[in-house]
């Protein structure tokens, strides 16, 4: 009897790949799925279940299903992908220096002058004092956001 295609193995593997790859391109865009990557773990879980079913069929019903060789290979690759993902979200992105205590709430933010995207110098003091276009009075405050950089 011709052995059937063991699609669970492929589907499981693809879902695990999606679990890994969809984080930077899809789920990291939204805080609700970025801070705790539950959507990605869900993809890995469903992929893992499919892989297990596929492997059970490949070894338990070997006369009906293929996959004794590429099944374990796909399974190992999926585990690698999961392991790498966990390394990134549970360890790598937490490697930061100890929080600075140099600047505290209540202190004055240090003055600076930096260049904007049109190569014009912009001073913090002018951001605090110059009214925005269309306004009469100075802003009530300034939000400074430091990005990591290297877009």
């Amino acid at each position, binding site marked *: 009897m011709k052995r059937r295609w063991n699609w669970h193995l492929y589907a499981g593997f693809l879902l695990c790949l999606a679990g890994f790859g969809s984080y930077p391109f899809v789920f990291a865009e939204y805080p609700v799925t970025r801070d705790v990557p539950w959507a990605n773990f869900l993809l890995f879980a469903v992929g893992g279940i499919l892989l297990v079913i596929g492997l059970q069929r490949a070894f338990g019903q070997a006369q009906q299903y293929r996959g004794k060789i590429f099944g374990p290979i796909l399974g190992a690759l999926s585990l690698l992908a999961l392991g790498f993902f966990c390394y990134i979200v549970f360890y790598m992105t937490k490697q930061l220096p100890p*929080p600075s205590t140099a600047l505290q709430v209540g202190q004055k933010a*240090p003055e600076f002058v*930096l*260049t904007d995207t049109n190569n014009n110098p912009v001073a913090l003091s002018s*951001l605090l004092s110059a009214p925005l276009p269309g306004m009469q009075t100075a802003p*009530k*405050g300034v939000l400074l*956001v*430091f990005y*990591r950089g290297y877009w």
Partner: protein
Amino acid sequence: MDTPETTRELCAKAGYTYTFLSDPNAEVIRRYDILHRGAGPNGHDIARPAEYLLDASGTIRWLNLTEDYRVRARPEQIIEQAKALR
């Protein structure tokens, strides 16, 4: 850490209209003590993510450092803090 040219391209692509400043030598990053040595591409220094909310006098009223650079302050949190400035 990026040059004005790099950030200009980013802002054009992403549609940002707020003031975007460049600190390519990490001077201000150092003055605010948020340098992360060697953590950038090719071992360059990089900033750690940080947000500072200043009132009209330039005093820090709220600041946010993160323990995980995937997790940043959400807009709603910042807006709530900004409302408290009034």
